[in-house]
């Protein structure tokens, strides 16, 4: 009898632990899903400032779409003038055996260059923001563990640690427990020195045909070591009423005559 009760208690503890881990992972995945926008078009301003106060402003049109077998994000730089028309297309295949890609189109030469999306070196130009942020594969392969709880601006947040196997570098993500919104991600190197901070703020929402879309209006990426700060502001977001593959070609297609 005693053994049975002990066994049942043990099972309950194990289940609770598993449940807790699953909750952490679920919380994280839900928060990431909110960042990975779907079927929307956004107008963004990207301001990059270095430690000496030199600032560069870019304007971007960014569209996100989910197709049957893949997800695409197209970024078109509209300002400054010299970069107008430069396009970056990320393609993530749902079939994990297919390699995600990033393509770049330079309008001045008509040249297209294709890169592997898992190249972590690739960044949004002029920033420390990894390119795969937009490809939603930013956190693929990371191990997720609970790192406790804290409060940010009187909001209860879960601290979640993410790290790649056999790598001492790690991230700490702070997620609003109730609303499942990402507030901050801190990057630490193998010496546990803070090397980057991403902050998400001013969450807003729009309605689309499928669901309410929640998004952060401001995303800030800063590097305490270099002093560089990049601020991405979503000035306008609207749901795409029609998802056309032709809108997600790397080379811009002429619009059909009305």
């Amino acid at each position, binding site marked *: 009898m005693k053994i049975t009760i002990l066994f049942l208690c043990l099972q309950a503890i194990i289940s609770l632990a598993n449940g807790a881990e699953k909750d952490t992972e679920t919380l994280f995945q839900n928060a990431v899903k909110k960042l990975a926008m779907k079927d929307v078009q956004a107008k963004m301003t990207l301001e*990059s400032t*270095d430690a*000496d106060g*030199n*600032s*560069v402003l870019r304007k971007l049109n960014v569209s996100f779409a989910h197709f049957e077998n893949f997800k695409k994000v197209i970024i078109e*730089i509209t300002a*400054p*003038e*010299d*970069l*107008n028309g*430069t396009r*970056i297309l990320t393609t993530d295949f749902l079939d994990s055996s297919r390699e995600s*890609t990033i393509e*770049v189109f*330079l*309008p*001045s*030469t008509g*040249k297209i*260059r*294709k*890169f*592997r999306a898992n*190249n972590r*070196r*690739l*960044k*949004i*130009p*002029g920033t420390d923001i990894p*390119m795969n942020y937009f490809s939603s594969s930013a956190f693929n392969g990371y191990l997720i563990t609970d790192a406790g709880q804290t409060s940010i601006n009187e909001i209860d947040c879960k601290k979640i640690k993410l790290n790649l196997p056999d790598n001492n570098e790690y991230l700490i993500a702070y997620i609003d427990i109730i609303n499942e919104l990402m507030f901050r991600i801190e990057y630490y*190197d193998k*010496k546990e020195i803070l090397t980057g901070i991403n902050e998400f703020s001013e969450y807003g929402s729009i309605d689309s045909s499928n669901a309410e879309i929640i998004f952060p209006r401001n995303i800030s990426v800063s590097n305490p070591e270099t002093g560089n700060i990049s601020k991405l502001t979503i000035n306008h977001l609207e749901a795409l009423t029609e998802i056309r593959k032709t809108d997600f070609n790397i080379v811009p297609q002429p619009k059909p005559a009305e």
Partner: protein
Amino acid sequence: MKLQNSTYRTILIAGTGILASLSVWLLPSLNINPSFDSYIPENINNRAFLNKLDSIFGSNEKLLLIQYNEKGVFNPESFTRTRQLAEKLQEIDGIEHTFSLNDVIEFREEDGFTEIHTLLAHIPDKPSELDSLKHKIAENPLAGHLISDDFTTSAIVLTKSDKTDDQSIIAEINRVIKQTPGKDEIHIGGLAYIRSSVKTYIKKDLITLMPAALLVMVVMLFLFFREWKGVLLPFLVVLLSIILSFGLMALFSWEISLVSVLLPIMLIAIANDYGIHLINLYQEESRKNRQEPPSAIAQKIFRELKRPITITGLTTIGGMLGLLSHQMAPAAQLGVLASAGIGIALILSLYLIPVLLTFYNKAPKRPAIERSSDRFLNKTLHLFARGVNKHPKTIVTSFLIISLISIGGLFLLKVDTNVEGYFTGDSTVRTSIELTNKKLGGSQYISLLFSGNILEPDVLRRMEKYTAQIALLPQAGNIISPVTLFRELSKGLYSAGESGYDNLPQSRPEAAQYLEIASMAGFDKQIAQLIDPNRENARILVSLTDGSNQTGKELLSALNSIAGKDPLIKGIAGPGLSKIQIADMVIRGQITSLVLAFFIIIILLSIIFKSIVAGIKGSLPLLFSTVLLFGLMGFSGIPLDIVTALLSSIMIGVGIDYTIHFLWRYKAEYAAHGSIEAAISTTLTTTGRGIIFNALSVIIGFAVLALSGFAPLRFFGLLVVISIFSCLICALLLVPAIITLTRPKFLEPDQNI
């Protein structure tokens, strides 16, 4: 007697003690600053422009980590070590950027994807791979300055933050080197390393030279006076003047620089002179009047020597104050501190030594045997007297001939403020300088800054033309140009055979988009070294093949003639060019300090002897010594630099003392004897003895500089010895010869008395 008044003695001794204690308390706040840029006023040319460059591109200061192996560094082990070192160095606080073979990018097409790799992404270990890498390096201009042509030396270029202390960065680099062992020798190169070494040497010199000079002084004083008061009293004055001068330095928040190392040596050599004269006369009077108590003798020597010692002190201070005309702050500061130190020594010698002498109750011991050196000295001085009295014209003519020959040497005099020349022999600093300059094209870079529409194709084409022309200059080592960057990027965007491959962008948007791709690929830092984020400023970096002023001037002149007239060029500057400005300041400072020192001396002598003729004739020996000194430097190839530029003021300030002592005593003796010959003989054999002791103390004091780790300080010591010796010979031969020939009225007894 005032000297025996206890209140007076207490106030004097206590006051001196309090001031000394305060100074000692302030000493720990002193900092050493070996930087040469801080010698240049902020608003001047190269320094002002450097500040502008820093604000656009970040720090301009480069360090090199040099990997050397005479058997070659082109092997897997060396490459692995390079990669490990680069990764660890990047993590050091204060290192803004590292650039090694590990960072040189190449674009490759693989299965339809553009792969961006660094040259050492895969460490080659097969002979065919090594050959392929050699080929890639040869074809990649961005890699050329990172490995020597003979493949025995490779470099990691580090960009150091301005905000970080040299010593701490070098210490961290050394720590990384220790953590990454290997078979290649590792050296550090660059101005920051040289500065750090200079700082170490300055500390070492202060610790070794000062005690050595003090010890030499103590030994010399004992040999002269053979009693401890003859050692302790002048020694005390010297020590106090050094402490109080350094206390003053701390009070003004001035920093110890390379030239400040001279201050204690100068004070040791000069400040004991007054004490020597006092003790010399004290012993003389004691021998003559054995029944007189020491306190009475002390009073007597104070009365007799107060005026001549004050005069010599003031003239020395006048010579030092000539340094105030220097634009270089450390030189002007040295002038102030040396003047203060000598003033303090003067006051302490005149007032403290006599007071302290009154504490002695016993008469000095009579020397049992006359020293053989005194007999030798007396014989020599008598010989001089005979020579002067019999052959004054020959003596003056000989001095004139030597002067004329020396003038020839003046035209050969060169100015070189190259800090690399400070290190000689097989010191580690010298080795790294040799490797940096001979194998890696140098580490001191000059920037040609272009501002405006720098991405326009015609601007890029002009930059390309300039880059090609600069490459032909023998003084130019490595050239890192935006056009090289664009050509390499084009290889990633076009395939071989296409017109755009290895070519410049054909439009401004194309250039901007090339940079956007490079930025996306994570090469912002490399781009930022050459083109600012707003794409409004670009620069070409050119290294000097060696750090000499000659090379710097020639390269600067050539760069100006190549690109100086470009409408977008905003300036040409670099840390390596600061020395040219320093050299210009050295020359100007040398001339102005000489003129000012001479002017002050002439005025002082004129006031002392109440005659302009006295001022002019009294400074003739100094003029001769100055011409001899610089002529000798010209003939022997010793350059005028930051340290040797201070020489003439010191020489004038010290050397004039001998002339004054001689003239003062001669005037008294002539008044007593009425005969020029007799007056000259007596003066030479009495005051002449003191002058020789005086000169010897200076010579021996400065000879200690032969122990310095720095070539300029060693040269300085040698030149001081030569110049003081020439001042001595002038005082003992030329001055009496001129008196014999011209019979100046200002040395005749005053008619009104």
